[in-house]
């Protein structure tokens, strides 16, 4: 069992992402679990970014505040991060360039640039030198896996580039062995891998889940941290026959997606909080016209432009109350990349079956992070497109889009272009046919029709995960991307002998009716942990369950929740 945290830090564009990816992929293939969190500034070059790779024998879904190993690619990186290196951790740096001071960690000076020029024949192979140095310091025997990763990574650039990088890795590796052998305490062998294992980001998992769920139309407008979803789909649109378009703004995006939903396909968009704010009138249009649409909000800290490249769970309230008037919606929040595939299949099913807008709420720490995913953990729900009008047997021009079929029934859909039938969808209050109505009694029934979908949805709904001790003293509650951190916090408490558990939600609204799986009265602390300043989920859950948390642990500095942060604030 091991649990290592390796951080690579440097100016934007210097290759932290490539080093961290290579390491994570290498260890994933070697049978371990990896998780990468990217701590990014909102700029393209310069500044300071840090990629934090966690490597663990057991699954890992969250980041850490302190590092076992830190690679710095410039002076600023060293200055900003050196205090985060653990007492007996390593700091890898290019001694020809910088001279980090201080004590408490093992300074590992590697002439990165020199070795890159010599072995890799190009300064750009600094990244590979650093990767080699890290592998050596970890005492790892996973070079074969690493070379495989590098081969694929640089395949498109030709054999020479591949070879140079492999040579650079070896150079870094050997330099450390030659100069710091005595410091290497670890000894990591590749594990026997049984099941298929993948490394992918939250964004990739969402895009993949959407395609696997049959999305046929995507319109969106770029916005961090959602853009990667859009680019994932764009890259595969031709292959999977998906209509894709970059809209002029988010308002166009949501209205295009709703149009395509009315048009009869599974349709979606993705954005972040500021872009979603612009979609809100569209959300109410989907509610009123009863048009299926899936919207991913990849949250980042607000208000306004806020922290474009950082993380927060601060848009839940807005998502829940987006749109004037009351109507049903579903809000889902995947816990990790593996679950995102399932969540997307659910999202499209909810959208089409109940003819509603469905919001998938993620965040930067989910979207940009890479997760090791076990095939065994990936599921999906088979498509359920809801009921369609049977035009075959029907009299010409008799279809009624908003037919009231009785309590809890959803009107049947029909595609435009159905022979001898027409479908009217209307954003005004409407008759059963879909024409503008001014009738009060009718409005009451239509309003209930749109709202009472909640009742139907709530009848069959995923329950939260309960993880940990059966008789806990501490229970952490949370939602979405925080799952990994909460689990880890509970594990750490259990290790210390404090019985702890996690109650964690991915179905955010409507909330499932549950009986608490623990005895509230015997808890020392019932804690809601969220990545926002007020505890937005806590408010909603307290109201729903008619209970109160004893404490809220809230992080709102733009950084992700970690077990350390949670325990420090308990």
């Amino acid at each position, binding site marked *: 069992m091991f649990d290592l945290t390796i951080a690579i830090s440097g100016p934007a564009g210097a290759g932290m992402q490539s080093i961290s990816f290579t390491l994570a992929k290498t260890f994933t293939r070697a049978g371990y679990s990896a998780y990468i969190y990217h701590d990014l500034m909102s700029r393209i070059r310069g500044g300071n970014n840090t990629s934090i790779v966690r490597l663990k024998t057991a699954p890992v879904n969250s980041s850490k505040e302190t590092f076992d190993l830190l690679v710095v690619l410039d002076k600023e990186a060293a200055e900003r991060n050196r205090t985060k290196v653990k007492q007996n951790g390593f700091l890898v740096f290019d001694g020809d360039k910088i001279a980090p001071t201080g004590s408490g960690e093992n300074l590992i000076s590697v002439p990165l640039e020199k070795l890159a020029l010599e072995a890799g024949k190009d300064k750009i192979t600094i990244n590979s030198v650093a990767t080699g140095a890290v592998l050596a310091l970890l005492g790892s025997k996973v070079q074969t896996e690493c070379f495989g990763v590098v081969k694929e990574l640089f395949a498109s650039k030709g054999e020479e580039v591949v070879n140079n990088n492999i040579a650079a890795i070896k150079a870094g590796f050997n330099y450390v062995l030659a100069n710091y052998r005595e410091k290497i305490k670890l000894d990591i062998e590749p594990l026997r891998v049984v099941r298929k294992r993948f490394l992918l980001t939250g964004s*990739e998992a969402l895009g993949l889940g959407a395609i696997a769920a049959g999305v046929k*139309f995507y319109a969106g407008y770029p916005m961090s941290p959602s853009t990667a979803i859009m680019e994932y789909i764009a890259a595969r649109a031709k292959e999977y026959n998906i209509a894709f378009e970059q809209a002029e703004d988010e308002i166009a995006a949501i*209205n295009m997606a709703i149009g395509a939903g009315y048009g009869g396909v599974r349709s979606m968009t993705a954005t972040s909080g500021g872009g979603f704010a612009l979609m809100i009138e*569209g959300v109410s249009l989907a509610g009123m016209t009863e048009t299926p649409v899936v919207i991913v909000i990849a949250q980042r800290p607000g208000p306004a432009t806020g922290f474009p490249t950082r993380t927060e769970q601060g848009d839940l309230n807005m998502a829940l109350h987006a749109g004037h008037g009351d109507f049903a919606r579903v809000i889902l929040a995947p816990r990790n990349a593996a679950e995102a595939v399932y969540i997307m299949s659910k999202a499209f099913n909810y959208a089409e079956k109940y003819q509603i807008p469905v919001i998938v709420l993620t965040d930067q720490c989910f979207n940009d992070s890479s997760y090791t995913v076990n095939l065994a953990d990936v599921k999906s729900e088979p498509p359920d497109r809801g009921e369609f009008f049977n035009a075959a047997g029907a009299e010409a021009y008799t279809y009624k889009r908003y037919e009231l079929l009785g309590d809890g029934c959803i009107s049947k859909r029909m595609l435009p272009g159905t022979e001898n039938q*027409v479908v009217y969808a209307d*954003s005004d209050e409407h008759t059963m046919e879909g024409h503008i109505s001014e009738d009060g009694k009718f409005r009451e029934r239509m309003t209930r029709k749109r709202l009472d979908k909640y009742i139907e949805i709530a009848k069959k709904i995923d329950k939260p995960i309960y993880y940990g001790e059966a008789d806990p003293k501490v229970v952490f509650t949370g939602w979405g991307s925080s799952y990994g951190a909460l689990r880890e916090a509970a594990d750490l408490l259990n290790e210390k002998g404090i019985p702890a558990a996690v109650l964690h939600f991915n179905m955010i609204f409507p909330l499932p009716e549950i009986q608490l799986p623990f005895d509230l009265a015997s808890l020392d602390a019932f804690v809601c942990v969220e990545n926002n300043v007020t505890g937005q989920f806590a408010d909603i859950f307290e109201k729903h369950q008619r209970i109160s948390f004893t404490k809220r642990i809230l992080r709102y500095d733009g950084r992700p929740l970690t077990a350390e942060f949670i325990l420090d604030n308990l």
Partner: protein
Amino acid sequence: MVTKEDYISSDPSSWCPGCGNFSILQALKQALVELDLAPWQVVMVSGIGQAAKIPHYLRVNCFNGLHGRALPAAFGIKTVNHKLKVIAAGGDGDAYAEGGNHFIHAMRRNPDLTYLVHDNQIYGLTKGQASPTTDLGMKTGTTPSGSVDIPESPLAVAVAMNCSFVARGFAGDIPHLAGLIKQGINHKGFALIDILQPCVTFNKINTYQWYKDRVYKLDGEPGYDPSDRVKAFEKALEWGAKIPIGVIYSKERPVFEDSIFKPGDASLSRQPLNPPDFVKLLEQYL
């Protein structure tokens, strides 16, 4: 054969007696019948306003969406149903104010849509405020001292955006308008038809008579070449003693759907869902 009766709607109109919208409705029905399109083959998409109520008043597939958002919705509908005729409609406020950005960008994409803008140079449904096409100096509820913002020439903007079909119609000449609508529907690409539409209630300046005194048909103009973009621009700017109606600019180019579909492809909405297995999609992340 499709007849006008096929297009009769169950929904009674709520326009003012004498409104130019009635003529547009009539011209539209005439065009659809002459093109022998059945109601179920046509989708009308509109925003909000008096004009935007039009889809309710004929029997067609209809998506009556939000104020200003007809074009994006129409784009979504058309893209997944490229075999249907999709016609968007709305007022000048809907199209050029709230919907101004979509107007611009729809022309860049050139989807095969027809856009009927009922241009009464006023906000009708909200009871008489200035629109982007309101003439300078006109007094309205929001311009009590007369409008100071220069009116937009939607046709000039369309020519500047290289819109593939740019025309102006007049509600006072139904046969001519019906002809334009037919041309617009037949045109492969985005067809803008800006229609001079008297609002008898709120626009007491640009009346039937005012337009009648000024409009002339381009069709009769000797040597007018609607494929000359610079000439079309000059023509589009004509607004005063003489106002041209007819096709101002027309130049076919690939439509958005061409970038996705090959001839003979089924509509996306008609294709079976059968999505790829996630296991296959995951392979690349092994």
